[in-house]
């Protein structure tokens, strides 16, 4: 269906999305935002796989994306449960509060 989109461009898009997710992870202090940034990064990785799959015309990349997707789902479930416990323990969503493992 698509013509001459060079694979490089697709991978660049994926790279930009990934980097944006990284920046969001580094800057924001709220745990919810950090989780959201992780989701962005996972999505970007998946995009890279799909681009590769499309390049070779094989389903393997898409299957890889399915794996990533299920991983992200499980991780989000557990992560949000942890956020709830975190909140009930620390009464705040500041990630810097949980630094008992320093030193």
């Amino acid at each position, binding site marked *: 269906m698509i013509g001459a989109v060079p694979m*490089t461009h697709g991978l660049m898009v994926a790279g930009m999305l990934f980097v*944006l997710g990284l920046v969001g992870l580094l800057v924001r202090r709220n745990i919810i935002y950090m989780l*959201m940034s992780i989701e962005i990064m996972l999505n970007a990785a998946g995009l890279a796989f799909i*681009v590769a799959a499309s390049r070779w015309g094989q389903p*393997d990349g898409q*299957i890889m994306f399915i794996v990533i997707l299920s991983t992200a*789902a499980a991780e989000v479930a557990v992560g949000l449960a942890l956020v709830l416990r975190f909140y009930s323990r620390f009464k705040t969503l500041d990630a810097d509060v949980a630094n008992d493992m320093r030193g």
Partner: protein
Amino acid sequence: MTAVFYIASAIAIVSTVMVITRMQPVHSLLYLIVSLLAVSLVFFVLGAPFIAALEVIVYAGAIMVLFVFVIMMLNLGREAAEQERRWIDISMWKGPSLLALVLLALMFYALHSGNPGAVSGRVVSPKEMSIALFGPYLMVVELSSILLLAGLVGAYHLARRETGNEERRRS
């Protein structure tokens, strides 16, 4: 079709930027959903319709809804936005942005040094995918199901509120 690809990519990138810069959690969530929809469109254009559907259903449909539920449960309202504003100021963006730009530059350089060719654009139908899933990638399915089970059990256990009996037993 190539134009669709580029437009959709641009929308995805712009809305991702909006995700990470908003102060209200719900706003950034909504922007994230937009980004995911754009990426799904990219998937569709690249010839992976099944995956595009999966993206919308699972990612934007389930995961983001989970986020919304949690935000609702935590009752993050106006004071959360104020808190966010206090925590973030312009000077905090400099370091990570620099690092990110460096990383991005490196990736671009690495990408351009090869010559991988163009996207073929052949649509990979769900039928092919299923055959692949039930064929060589059978274990993937099994492992994914185990992973999901583990996530289910873990999330259930972690999020469970203690009943009164357990509280008394613990103290």
